[in-house]
C-alpha cells in the first residue's frame, strides 16, 4: 500500500474530505521524507518506530497510515440521570495489532477525555493534539446546539486522526481499546486510578517548588518559544474573531441597503432598471459576504483555536518534562547525601555494612531508573517537537492560504456581479444613443 497519497478507494469513505488539513499534512510530509524507503507492511513500520525514536523526523514523512478513523453520526442519549451526546467512531485498519479490520463503537466526550489522560500519563512528553473544550462559555449557552455539536465532532475527528498518524501514540494500548472495545467503562476503571494520579500531581507540585538545578539550553529555548507562541496564537485568534464580528455587522447593513434601491425603483420609470440592477448587485454581494464569513468560521477559526489549545498542551508537556527531571534530581541529591552517611557508617560500625550497602544499591538503581526516564522523556520530546513544528506550520499555512484564496474568490465574484451590471448599462446607453440620434 503506497503511503504517498490516501488510497483512492478508501479516501471516499475514510477521511472526511472537508479535512483538507489532514490530506495536506500527508502530502507535505511525504515530500519532506528523505532517503527512507517506503516500508511495506504496517507491522514492520510499527516495529521500526518502536526501536528508532531518533529517526522520527525522517520517518514521520514515510509513515504509512494504517489506521483510518472517522467520527460522525452524533446522537443524543436521554437517561434518567443525564442527557449526553455519543459519536460513532469507525475504524478501518490493516495493522496486525488489531484482531479485525473494521470496528464501530460509540463514544461520548468523557471517553475521549479518558483516552487523552491515559496517553498523557504513558507518554508524558509527547505532544498530543488537543481535544475540543468542554464547553464554550462565550456565545453558546446550549450544549446541544447543532453548530456546537458539529464543531466538536470535527475536532474529535481530528484528535483521533492525529493520534492515528502519530508513530508512537498510534501503538498505544489505550488507543486500541478506545477504538475497539464495545464498552469502555470496564477499562476506565483499570489502570492508575484517581489516588495515584493525585500522588503524581503532588510530587510534581513539590518538585516545582524546589525548582530545577539546571535546564538544558535547548529546553529553555523551547520554553521561551512556547510562551511566545501561545501569546501570538491568542492574538491571532482574537483578531480573527473580531474580523468575523465586523463582517457580520457589515453584512447586516448590506441586507438593508439593497432593498432601498428596489424601493426607489418603484417610483421611477427609466431609472427603475439601473436601480434594480444596483440593488441586485448589492444583494448578491451580501450573499457572498455571508459565504466568506462561513468559510472563516469553518476553516481559519477552528485551526487557530486548536493551536491556542496546542500552546497550552505544549506548556503542560514542558512542565511534565521539568517534573521528571526534578524528580530525578531530588532522588539524586538524596543518594549523594546517603553516600556520605554511608562513609560515616562504615567508619563507625562495620556490622550493619551489608544493609547499608543494599540500601545504597537500591537507591542507586532508583536514581539510574530516573536518569533513564529523563533521557527517554527528553528524547521523546525532541523527536515530537520537530514533528509538531512541521505539522503546525503545515496546518496554519494551509488555513491562511485557504482564507486568502477565499477572499480572492469573494472579490472575484463581486467583481463579476458589478461588471455584468455595467455591461447591461452599456447596452442600454447604446440603445438610447441610437434612439436619440434617430430622433
Amino acid at each position, binding site marked *: 500500500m503506497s503511503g504517498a497519497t490516501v488510497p483512492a478507494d478508501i479516501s471516499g469513505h475514510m477521511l472526511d474530505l472537508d479535512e483538507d488539513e489532514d490530506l495536506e499534512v500527508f502530502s507535505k510530509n511525504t515530500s519532506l521524507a528523505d532517503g527512507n524507503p517506503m516500508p511495506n507492511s504496517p507491522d514492520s513500520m510499527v516495529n521500526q518506530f518502536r526501536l528508532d525514536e531518533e529517526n522520527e523526523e525522517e520517518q514521520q514523512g514515510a509513515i504509512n497510515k494504517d489506521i483510518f478513523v472517522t467520527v460522525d453520526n452524533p446522537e443524543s442519549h436521554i437517561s434518567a440521570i443525564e442527557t449526553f451526546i455519543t459519536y460513532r467512531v469507525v475504524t478501518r485498519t490493516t495493522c496486525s495489532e488489531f484482531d479485525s479490520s473494521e470496528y464501530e463503537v460509540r463514544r461520548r466526550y468523557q471517553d475521549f477525555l479518558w483516552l487523552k489522560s491515559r496517553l498523557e500519563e504513558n507518554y508524558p512528553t509527547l505532544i498530543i493534539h488537543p481535544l475540543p473544550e468542554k464547553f464554550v462559555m462565550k456565545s453558546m449557552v446550549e450544549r446541544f446546539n447543532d453548530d456546537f455539536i458539529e464543531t466538536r465532532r470535527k475536532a474529535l475527528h481530528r484528535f483521533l486522526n492525529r493520534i492515528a498518524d502519530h508513530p508512537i501514540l498510534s501503538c498505544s494500548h489505550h488507543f486500541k481499546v478506545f477504538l475497539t472495545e464495545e464498552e469502555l467503562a470496564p477499562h476506565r476503571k483499570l489502570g492508575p486510578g484517581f489516588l495515584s494520579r493525585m500522588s503524581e500531581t503532588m510530587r510534581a507540585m513539590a518538585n516545582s517548588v524546589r525548582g530545577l538545578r539546571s535546564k538544558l539550553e535547548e529546553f529553555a529555548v523551547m520554553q521561551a518559544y512556547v510562551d511566545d507562541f501561545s501569546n501570538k496564537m491568542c492574538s491571532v485568534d482574537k483578531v480573527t474573531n473580531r474580523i468575523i464580528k465586523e463582517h457580520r*455587522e457589515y453584512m447586516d447593513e448590506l441586507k438593508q441597503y439593497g432593498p*432601498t434601491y428596489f424601493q426607489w425603483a418603484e417610483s421611477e420609470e427609466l431609472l427603475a432598471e439601473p436601480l434594480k440592477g444596483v440593488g441586485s448587485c448589492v444583494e448578491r454581494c451580501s450573499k457572498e459576504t455571508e459565504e466568506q464569513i462561513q468559510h472563516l468560521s469553518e476553516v481559519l477559526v477552528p485551526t487557530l483555536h486548536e493551536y491556542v489549545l496546542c500552546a497550552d498542551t505544549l506548556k503542560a508537556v514542558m512542565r511534565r518534562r521539568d517534573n521528571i527531571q526534578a524528580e530525578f534530581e531530588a532522588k539524586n541529591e538524596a543518594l549523594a547525601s546517603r553516600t556520605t552517611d554511608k562513609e560515616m557508617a562504615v567508619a563507625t560500625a562495620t556490622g550493619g555494612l551489608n544493609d547499608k550497602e543494599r540500601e545504597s544499591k537500591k537507591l542507586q538503581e532508583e536514581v539510574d531508573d530516573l536518569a533513564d526516564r529523563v533521557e527517554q522523556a527528553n528524547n521523546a520530546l525532541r523527536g515530537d517537537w520537530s514533528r509538531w513544528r512541521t505539522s503546525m506550520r503545515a496546518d496554519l499555512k494551509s488555513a491562511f*492560504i485557504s482564507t486568502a484564496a477565499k477572499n480572492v474568490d469573494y*472579490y472575484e465574484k463581486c467583481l463579476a456581479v458589478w461588471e455584468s451590471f455595467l455591461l447591461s*448599462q452599456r447596452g442600454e446607453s447604446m440603445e438610447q444613443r441610437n434612439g*436619440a440620434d434617430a430622433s
Partner: protein
Amino acid sequence: MLCISYNFIHYVKPSLELPGLFSVVRMRIASSADSSSNNSRSQMIMADSGSSDEVAVICNTDITSTESENNLINTMVERGTALLKKMEISVAEADKRTGKNTVNMQETYTVYLIETRPAESVSEEGTPAAPDTLWRRYSEFELLRTYLLVTYPYIIVPPLPEKRAEFVWHKLSADNLDPDFVERRRVGLENFLLRLASHPVLSNDNIFFLFLTEEKGWREAVLETGFQDKADSRLKSLSAMFRVKNPDKRFTALKHYSEDLSTVISQLLRIRARVADRLYGVYKVHANYGRVFSEWSAIEKEMGDGLQSAGHHMDTYAASIDDILEEEEHYADQLKEYLFYTEAVRSVCRKHELIQYELEMAAQDLSYKKQQKEELETGTVRIFSLKGMTSKLFGQETQEQRESKVAALEQSIQEGEDALKEKNAESQEFVEKAWNDIERFNEQKEKDLREALISYAIMQISMCKKGIQVWSNAKECFNKM
C-alpha cells in the same frame, strides 16, 4: 438638435490595463499657471468651439484617486447656452477669513474664489489667459439662489450643497471648517454655478452674471431688484394652508413623486453611511493582523519571512479603505444634489397651487358677484345675505338705490372678469413655463442619476480589483510560509 457627445467610460485596473467597457475622454482644462493651490481643479464645462450648438458632456469615471479627487461625476446633458459660450466658470479655491458679522462679533468664515475666463482664450495655443477672479462666501450664494427662486417661480432652481454636513459616518467630520468638508463644498458650489450657467433661462439672468463678475456692489444690485416683495408672496405660498378644488393632476403627481424621492434618497443616504462605517471597521481590523504577524514572525524561523510580508499586505489592505470611501462620498454628493432638488420641485408645485387657488378664488368671487347682480335684477333672493333678509323684513329699497347698486356691481364684475382673465393668463404661462422646465429637469435627472449609478458600479469594481490584488499577494506570502 440635441447631440450628445458622450464618449466612453474608461476605468483603469490598477495593475493591468484592460480595454474598458466604456472609456471617456475626460476633459481637464490645464490649470492656469498662477494657480498654486493644492486642490486639483475639477472640471469645467466648455462649449464646443465647433459649429454646432453642442456642449461636450464630460463624464469622469476615472477611478484612480491619485488623479483629481475632486472630480464630480457630472454628466450634464445641456443645451448650449449663450453664457457658456462666452465664458468658463470655476470655483477654484477656498480660503478662510475673519471679520465682523451682523451682530458685530468676530467670526471665521470660508470664502470661495470664483474664476471666469472668456471662452475663446483656451482654444489658442500656449497658456490660456489669466482669469478674472472674485471671492464669495456661502451666504452670498444663498442670496443669489433666493433671488432666483423668487424671480423665476416656475423654474426648478438648482440646489446649493449642504450648509452643514449631514449623513456623516463616524470617520467623516461634521465640522464645517474641516478641510475635506470645505473641499467637497467647493466642488458643490462650482457644480451649482455650472448648473445655472447651463440652464436655458437662468443663464440669461443679469444678477447671476453680476454675481460672477462684480465683487463689490453685487448685494446692492440684488436688493435693488426689489425681489424682497415677491419673496413675501413666495413665503406665503410655501406656508399657506389652502385647498385647491380642482388640482392639476400632473402637478399633484409631481408633488407626490418628489416627496417619495426625497424620502427614499434620504433613507438610501442614511443606510449607505452606515454601510460605509461597517466596511471601514472590517478593513481597519486587518491592520491588527499586520501587527501580530510581524511580532509572530520574529519567533519563527522558516515561517518568518512569509508571515512578515503577509503582514505588510494586511496593512496595505487596511489602509486602502480610506481612498475607497472618499470616492464614495462623491456618489453620496450626487444623490444629495437630487435630494435637495426635490425641495425646488416641491416649491414649484406649491407655487402652482397658490396660483391655481387664486384663480379659483377669482372665479368664485366673480360668479358670486354675478349672482348678486342677477338677484338684484330679478328680485329673487337665492343667496342668503343679511342685507337681503333685513330688506325683506324691513322694507324694500327704492328703485334708485337698486339701480345704483347694480351699476356698482357691473363695474365690479367687469374688474373681476379682467382679473380672472389676467389670472388665467398668468396660470397658463406659469404652467407652460413650468412644464417646460420640468421636462428638462426630468431628462437631466435621469441621465445624471444613471451616470451616478454607473460610476458607483465602477467604484465597486475598483474596490474589488484592489481586494483581489492584495489577497493574491497575501496568498503568495502565505505560500512561502
